[in-house]
C-alpha cells in the first residue's frame, strides 16, 4: 500500500513537471540526481514553519521539488509564527502553506485567512480520527494533520516499580518512595489547565459539550467539574499537588529524583534520558471508580492560506504529499511525536517503548477544543485550580466562579 502511494505520486508528478529529468522509479529516491543538472522549476511554493520544524521540512521538501518541479521555500518564524501569518494574510500576503497546531484552526478560519481542504474517504480512513476532528471547524477540514501528541505518566522505575492502576495507587506509591514530592504535576501560581485536564476529565468534568464544539455548554461547573475541583482541593490539602510545581521546574525535579512520578509530554524525556534515569511511560491513571483520565491531544498540520499565490501547488502539497507515510515518519523521527497516519504511527512505534507509552496514554485523549471560546477557558480554569489547591477557595466555589467567568467571557465576545 505504502509503496504504491509513493510511487504513484512520484511518477505522476514527474510526468507533469517541467523537469522530467528525475523520473526515477527507485523507491529509495535518495541516490539523487541533484548535483549535476541545474533544475528548472515551473513554479514556487512558500511554506512558513516554526523554528523546530523548519530544518526537517527543508530536508524533505527536496523530494517534492524533484518530483513536481516546483521550488519550495521554507521560511522560519521564531516564536511569532501565528501572529506573523495573521498579519501577512489579512493583507493578502504571506505564504502558501502554514505549518501549525490544530488549536489555531478556529481563530484562523474565523479570520478568513485559511482555505478548507477536501480529503478523499480513503485518505481520511488512513488518519487518526481524532486528528481530523481536531482540524474541523464548522464542518470543514482546514489542514492535513501529520503529528499528534499528548501527555502521559513518566515513572522513575527505580523509585516505583509498579504501574499504578488508579490515581490513589499512584499517590500511595509516591508517598512510599519517600521522595520530597509525591507527584510532579505542573500547576504554577496561575494553574495549568492543560496538565490538569486528565484529572478533571476523570472526575467527569468536560468542556464544550460531548463533542468539544458547543460554546454554550462549558462543563466546568457541572457536577463532574465541581467534583474535580473538590478533588484538587483535597489533593492540595494533603500536599500531593502544589502551586510551587510549574512547567519550568517539574522536569528538573524529576531528573533530580525528587519524585517517582512526572506528568508531562514527550519533550520531557530528553532530560530524563540525558540524566540516565530509568523510566517508563504509561497512561495517566484515573481516580478509583471514575472515568479514565483523558489528556488533551495536540495535533500539528499543514494549512493552505486563503491568499496563497500558488494555490495549486499548495493544495497538491497539502492534500497529497503531506499524507505520505514516508514524510510523516521523517517528521516523527525529527520531532519525536506520533504520526497522524495510522500506518506510519504503527511503524514508528515498533520497538519504541516511549512512543508506545504515550500512544497508550493517548487512547482516551480528546482533541483540545479548537473553537475560539477555548481562549476564554485557560485563565479562569487555571486560577480556580490554583486557588483550590492552595486552599484559598473551596473546590465547589472555585468551579462555579470559574464556570461563570468563562460563560461571561464567551457571551461578551
Amino acid at each position, binding site marked *: 500500500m505504502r509503496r504504491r502511494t509513493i510511487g504513484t505520486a512520484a511518477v505522476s508528478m514527474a510526468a507533469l513537471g517541467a523537469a522530467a529529468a528525475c523520473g526515477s522509479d527507485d523507491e529509495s529516491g535518495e541516490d539523487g540526481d541533484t548535483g549535476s543538472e541545474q533544475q528548472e522549476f515551473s513554479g514556487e511554493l512558500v511554506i512558513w514553519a516554526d523554528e523546530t520544524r523548519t530544518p526537517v521540512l527543508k530536508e524533505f521538501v527536496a523530494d517534492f521539488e524533484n518530483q513536481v*518541479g*516546483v521550488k519550495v521555500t521554507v521560511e522560519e518564524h521564531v516564536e511569532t509564527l501565528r501572529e506573523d501569518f495573521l498579519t501577512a494574510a489579512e493583507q*493578502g500576503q504571506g505564504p502558501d502553506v502554514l505549518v501549525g497546531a490544530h488549536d489555531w484552526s478556529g481563530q484562523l478560519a474565523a479570520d478568513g*485567512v485559511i482555505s478548507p481542504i477536501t480529503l478523499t474517504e480513503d485518505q481520511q480512513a488512513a488518519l487518526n480520527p481524532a486528528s481530523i476532528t481536531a482540524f474541523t471547524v464548522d464542518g470543514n477540514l482546514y489542514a492535513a494533520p501529520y503529528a499528534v501528541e499528548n501527555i502521559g505518566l513518566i515513572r522513575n522505575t527505580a523509585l516505583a516499580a509498579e504501574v499504578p492502576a488508579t490515581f490513589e495507587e499512584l499517590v500511595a506509591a509516591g508517598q512510599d518512595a519517600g521522595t520530597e514530592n509525591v507527584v510532579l504535576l505542573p500547576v504554577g501560581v496561575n494553574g495549568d489547565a492543560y496538565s490538569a485536564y486528565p484529572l478533571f476529565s476523570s472526575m467527569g468534568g468536560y468542556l464544550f459539550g460531548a463533542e468539544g464544539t458547543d460554546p454554550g455548554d462549558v462543563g466546568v461547573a457541572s457536577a463532574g467539574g465541581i467534583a474535580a475541583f473538590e478533588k484538587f482541593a483535597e489533593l492540595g490539602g494533603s500536599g500531593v499537588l502544589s502551586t*510551587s510545581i510549574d512547567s519550568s521546574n517539574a522536569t528538573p525535579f524529576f531528573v533530580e529524583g525528587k519524585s517517582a512520578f512526572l506528568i508531562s509530554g514527550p519533550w520531557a524525556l530528553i532530560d530524563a534520558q540525558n540524566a540516565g534515569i530509568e523510566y517508563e511511560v504509561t497512561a495517566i491513571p484515573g481516580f478509583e471508580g471514575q472515568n479514565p483520565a483523558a489528556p488533551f491531544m495536540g495535533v500539528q498540520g499543514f494549512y493552505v492560506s*486563503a491568499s496563497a499565490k500558488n*494555490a495549486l501547488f499548495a493544495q497538491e502539497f497539502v492534500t497529497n504529499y503531506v499524507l505520505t507515510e514516508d514524510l510523516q515518519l521523517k517528521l516523527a523521527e525529527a520531532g519525536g511525536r506520533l504520526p497522524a497516519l495510522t500506518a506510519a504511527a504503527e511503524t514508528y512505534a515498533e520497538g519504541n517503548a516511549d512512543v508506545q507509552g504515550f500512544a497508550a496514554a493517548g487512547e482516551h485523549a480528546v482533541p483540545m477544543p479548537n473553537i475560539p471560546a477555548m*481562549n476564554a477557558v485557560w485563565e479562569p480554569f487555571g486560577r480556580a485550580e490554583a486557588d483550590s489547591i492552595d486552599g484559598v*477557595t473551596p473546590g465547589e466555589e472555585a468551579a462555579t466562579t470559574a464556570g461563570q467567568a468563562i460563560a461571561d467571557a464567551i457571551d461578551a465576545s
Partner: protein
Amino acid sequence: MLDQRSQTAGSHTAAGLIAKIAVLAVVTALAVWAALPLIDARAWWGLGAEAAAVAVIFYTYLQRRRIPLKYLVPGTLLLIAFQILPVVLTIGTSFTNYGDGHRVGKDQAIEAIIAAGVQPTPGGNTYLLSVGESASGDLALLLTDTDEGTHWAGTEEGLTALDEVETDQAGRITAAEDYEVWGLAELNERHAEVAELAVPTGEHSGIKVQGLSAFEGTSTRSYDAGCDCITDDEAGIVWHADDETGTFVTEDGDEALVGWRVGIGFDNYLQVLTDEDIRGPFFGVFVWNLAFGAGSVLLTFALGLGAAMALNRPGMRGTKLYRSVMILPYAMPSFAMLLVWAQMFNRDYGVINELLGMNVDWYGQTWAARAMVLIANTWLGFPYMFLISLGALQALPADSLEAAKIDGATGLTAFRKITLPLLLVALTPLLISSFAFNFNNFNAIELLSGGNPINAGDTVGGTDLLITYAFRQAFGSSSADYGFASAISVFIFLIVATISALMFRATRSQEDVYS
C-alpha cells in the same frame, strides 16, 4: 551648473557640497524604493505624503536662508513618523472593529464563507487532473478516473467521455484530441481561471479542482450582490450583510463564521465606559498604578542618588569598579532579569525565602506581591538614576556648596537646602518621564507577577496596572480585539498626558523659585 547650485545651496566647501549631494541622493533613492510598493498597492495618500516629505527636505537644503529650518526638519519628520503616526493609527484603529473575526475585507470574507460551503458528494468520484485549451480558447478539465480507467473532458456543458488520449504512468492525461494540454507552470499561473470553470455533473453538483486532482462536489453557498446576502441552499440559510457591524447575520441573529473590518464609531469607547468589568475595578487599579509609578521613581531615585553621592565623595577609592558593578542591572536585558526575579520569589524554592528564612507567599498576598514588584523594579531601575544623579552632581557649581559651608550649613542641611534643590532643577523632567514610563511598565508586571494575586472570579489582580489589565481585557479572554484595546490605550494616554502636563507645570514654578 554645479557652481550655481553650491551658491544657492549655501555650502561653503567642496567636501560639504559632496556630503550634501550624497545625503540628498540617498534620500532620493530611499524615496524611489519606498514609492514603488506604494504605487503597486495604489496607496495614493501614502505616496502623496512621501512626496511631500521629500519636497520639504529638498526645499530646506537646496536654499541658503532659513537656517533654523535646516535643524528642525529632520527632527520634525522623525517625530511625525515615529511618535505622531503611531498615535494617529491607534486612534484610527480604536474606531473600528478590527480584531479576531474581523480581520479581512468584505470581499475576502465573502470568499471564505462561500469556500466553506463546498462539500464532496458522498461516494462521488475523484479524478487526476490536467487542463486543456481548445483551439478557440475554451478551457476543459481533462480528468482521469483511476478506479475505472476512464477519461473525461469537463466543460461548462458537463462531462464528455474521451477515447483517444495519451497518459503518463499514473494515468494523468498528457495529450488529448482537440485540446492543447497545459504544462505545470501555466496551470499554476492561470489557476484562478481553472477554479472559476464550473463543470456541472448534476443539478447541484460539479467538479471541484484541488491541486492536481479534482472531485465531485457541491457548492451550497452563493453571494447575491442585489440583496447583499449569502444563501446556503442546502441548509436553507440566508445571511444578510450588516455593514454597521461587519458581519453576515441571519434573521435569527446567527452570525456567519467570518466577518470583515468596518468603522464602528464610538462603540469601543462606549464599551470601555459602560463595561462593568472595567468601570468597577478602575479606581482601585488607578490608585495602585499611581502608587507603583511614584514608588518606583522615589525608590530608584533615592537608591541611585545615595549611591551617586557615596561614589562622588572625594577620596573614595575604587570608584571605577563600583560604578561598573552598579551599571550591571542596567546593562542586562530586563526581560531575562525579570524572569529570574520571578523564580527567586517562588514561595517554596525561591532564593529570597530560603536566604531570609521566610515563608512569604509572594504571589498569593496582595501586599507581598506589591512589595515584590517594587523591589525587583527598584533593582532594575536604580542604575539609571545613579547615572543621571552622578552626572548632575558633578555639574553642580562648587561655589554654592562652598558658600553654604562658610555660612555653616553642612551635612544634611547642605544636602537638603542646596544640593537637592539644585539637582531637582536638572532632574525633574527626567523623573517625570521615568514616572510616565513606570506608569505603563507592562513588562515589569506581566513578567514578574502577571497581575497576581487574582482571586477566582475577579477580573483584576492585586498588582495589575491599567496597561496589564487592559491587555488582559483585550487579548486574554476570548480573542484579540485590537479596536477595543486601542480605545483603552487612548484612555491611558489621556491619563498619562494629563498627569505629565500637571507635573511639568509644577516644575516650571519650581524653576522660577530656584533660578
